[in-house]
């Protein structure tokens, strides 16, 4: 039971590295971008895992209720804004991939490198 308290962190480690694997090993640019999104989500999971307090509740203070325990609001604020920024940057990456596809006719890293070698 003691070790179960670390399960969230293990899932974070695995997700982080699954995403990283897609970024370094996959040839398809969209696959790389999806990998980057998984990587990003893993970091979100790490932060949100840290905000949890045993027996706590979402940090919304109810008038009159005393001796409530609240989870930590700070990591939540950081991640809330990070999610929106994440989709914006993913969209920018997708836009660049679309243009690469129009200019080179492929989004596979290998074919792009071959085209560069013999112009």
């Amino acid at each position, binding site marked *: 039971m003691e070790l*179960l*308290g*670390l*399960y*969230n962190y*293990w*899932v*974070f480690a*695995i997700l*982080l*590295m*699954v*995403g*990283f*694997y897609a970024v*370094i090993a996959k*040839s*398809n640019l*969209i*696959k790389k971008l*999806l*990998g980057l*999104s*998984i990587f990003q*989500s893993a970091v*979100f999971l790490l932060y*949100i*895992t840290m*905000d*949890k*307090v*045993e027996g706590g509740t*979402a*940090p*919304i*203070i109810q008038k009159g209720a005393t001796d409530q325990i*609240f989870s*930590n*609001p*700070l*990591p*939540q*604020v950081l*991640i*809330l*804004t990070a*999610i*929106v*920024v994440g*989709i*914006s940057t*993913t*969209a*920018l990456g*997708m*836009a660049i991939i*679309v*243009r690469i*596809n129009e200019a080179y006719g492929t*989004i596979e890293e290998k074919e792009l490198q071959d085209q560069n070698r013999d112009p």
Partner: protein
Amino acid sequence: MIVLFAIFLLTLLVISAIAIVRVKNLFVAVMLMGIFSLLMASTFFILDAADVALTEAAIGAGVSTIILLSALALTGEHERFATANRWLPLLVVTITTTTIIYATFDKPRLGDPEAPVHQHVAPWYLQNTPELIDIPNVVTAVLASFRGYDTLGEVFVVLTACIGVLFVLGARPEDAPKPAKQQGLRHHLIPKVVGRLLVPFIVLFGLYVQFHGDFGPGGGFQAGAIIATGIMLYAVLEGETAALKAVPSSLLMAMVAGGAILYGGVGVAAILLGGNFLDYSVLSSNPVDGQHLGILLVELGVGITVCGALLSIFHAFAAREHK
């Protein structure tokens, strides 16, 4: 019981992440990404982060899937190469995973109230928010008031990313030949009937999330994304032309810039009234009322910018499709 459910969700997250990386068809990968985001949102909710769960559900499972699909329509959906040299990356990834997991044994257990992260400034925010800001949702208070600078920066990142997408893909020039009238899904009966019913309620819910953000989970980021989803659904159903008629791109541009200006303007107004930048206490004779007014305006600015930016990005991809 909740622990078992959390472990089930986390395990599903790992499985779907591995499936996203392994699957050859990119369409399937994008749909799995939506499922991944929904699982992530549920996990956030279990971890007491209601605001973050709402954001992840609206953005990750909603907007992001639509934008990825509209980009996929332009690039083709098949991954052509198997991974050639997979052993080196696999080795690197395995070693790093093992190292990180080894490092986690020093981390405080989940929910430990004695963890260092709960000892520093967090108790101060929880204690002083009722007195200084007097709104129930501490996350909104920190987001819009205590850490207003940070949020202003994030809004400008969204604005910059939107400008970047429009530069890369090119906004449609006014005199360009109008694309053939899109039919959308109008000839499919069920999406048409159900979708048209849903659109107004999605937008209404978005407005509720926007203006109820002080009291419950919600705020500008979530609301902007939800309203954008509603209008994207309309665009999918009725065709892009109809959606651009309802919300023209000139209005979208004004929204993207106007929201950011509204946010910054509140900060400048605070300076002119003798306070510090983004110090809302001076906006009204009563400091707490000033905070309420400031947070309302700032959240509105965030919502307008996020909604405009996401819709502009969607239209930039969709317009390219029909060239």
